[in-house]
């Protein structure tokens, strides 16, 4: 049977990808950021997941305003890195897992989560930067990846509560897949940041760290935090943090914290990172 063993949370700041792609990761500005992921690369090399379910958001790359799915699951054989206006990132093509992805789509819809099924989609930095942070710069990504795109561009995104429960439904769906697969769920985006208007550059370390504390210890309580609180406290783009709740919902109630990292800044953004293993 397939099983979810662990969850990874990480910010997905585009400048991190650009720093790696342009050979700047050794510069003083970036060194402390990448140092925070050294453990993570060793961890995932040991963990060897067969499949990653990667929760992220598209940033007006695959989805314009013509079509705005709240939850979209990528069921294709593969996904190309998107051209975000300066050419696609020089990273490997993302290989999907159509078998598990379609099983997830069917199971989730019957479990009353009405997923949008996507058979062709380019994936932007929201998906590829977390892979780069965890795997570095390989010739091919070492496992299959199922993109799960969440709308956080058009307000309102799905609620934290809805995201948390989607994570639980993902856990049920994975557990009913007959193939013996080790699955890790990524929740990406955040932490506090605002990219627009006179309040651009907002960072709230206290909110970010309280979020991580409660996500670990009492995710149900965290799932009740309102959009207004995220936007006010963590910035208009900090609301991406609801995606971490999907990852957390897919894990056991109690988790073992393998790694925790926080760093300000990466360009305009506070970077947070967690590795959590399910217990029992």
């Amino acid at each position, binding site marked *: 049977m397939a099983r979810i063993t662990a969850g990874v949370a990480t910010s997905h700041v*585009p*400048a991190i990808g650009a720093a790696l792609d342009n050979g700047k990761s050794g510069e003083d500005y970036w060194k402390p950021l990448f140092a925070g992921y050294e453990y993570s690369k060793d961890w995932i090399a040991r963990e060897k997941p067969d499949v990653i379910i990667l929760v992220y958001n598209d*940033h*007006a*790359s695959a989805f*314009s*305003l*013509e079509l705005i799915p709240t939850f979209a699951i990528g069921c294709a054989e593969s996904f190309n890195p998107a*051209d*975000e*206006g*300066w050419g696609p990132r020089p990273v490997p093509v993302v290989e999907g897992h159509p078998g598990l992805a379609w099983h997830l789509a069917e199971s989730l819809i019957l479990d009353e989560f009405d997923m949008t099924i996507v058979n062709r989609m380019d994936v932007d930095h929201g998906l590829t930067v977390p892979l780069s942070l965890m795997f570095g710069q390989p010739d091919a990504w070492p496992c299959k990846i199922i993109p799960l795109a969440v709308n956080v*561009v*058009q*307000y*309102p995104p799905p609620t934290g509560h809805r995201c948390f429960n989607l994570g639980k439904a993902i856990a049920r769906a994975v557990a009913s897949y007959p193939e013996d697969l080790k699955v890790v769920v990524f929740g990406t985006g955040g932490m*506090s940041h*605002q*990219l*627009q*208007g*006179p*309040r*651009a*550059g*907002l*960072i*709230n*370390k*206290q*909110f970010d760290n309280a979020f991580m504390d409660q996500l670990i210890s009492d995710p149900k309580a965290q799932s009740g935090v309102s*959009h*207004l609180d995220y*936007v*006010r*406290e963590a*910035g*208009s*783009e900090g609301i991406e943090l609801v995606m971490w709740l999907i990852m957390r919902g897919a894990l056991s109630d109690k988790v073992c914290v393998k790694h925790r990292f926080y760093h*300000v*800044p990466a*360009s*305009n953004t*506070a970077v947070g990172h967690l590795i959590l293993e399910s217990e029992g």
Partner: protein
Amino acid sequence: MSQKPYHDIPGTILFDAEQSRAGFHLNQFCMSLMKADNRAAFKADERGYLDQWPMTEAQKQSVLRRDWNGMLALGGNIYFTSKIAATDGLSFQQIAAIMSGVTQPEYAAMMLAGGRSIEGNRYK
């Protein structure tokens, strides 16, 4: 504009239904700049390119003037308007500095020092 609970947050325009309806054509114009041919056509004749889109005159003027906050007020979304910045060769941090009324070095220094503080920035 109707009153929403988040309208008391300073310096922030949420891209809600009202903004999205107002900004649809502005944002779809921005989306067209994902293609190199369109970027070239826009750069060659900005006004002519904008006139192909059913945008309001105020929206067109905000683009021509690179009034980044003005575009947001008229329904632009930052992930879309940043495509104009990319076309201009500006980084996200450069337009963030302009939108918050400081120079890019000042903005970068603020971020290195921990970012804009939440204190005093929760309510209008």
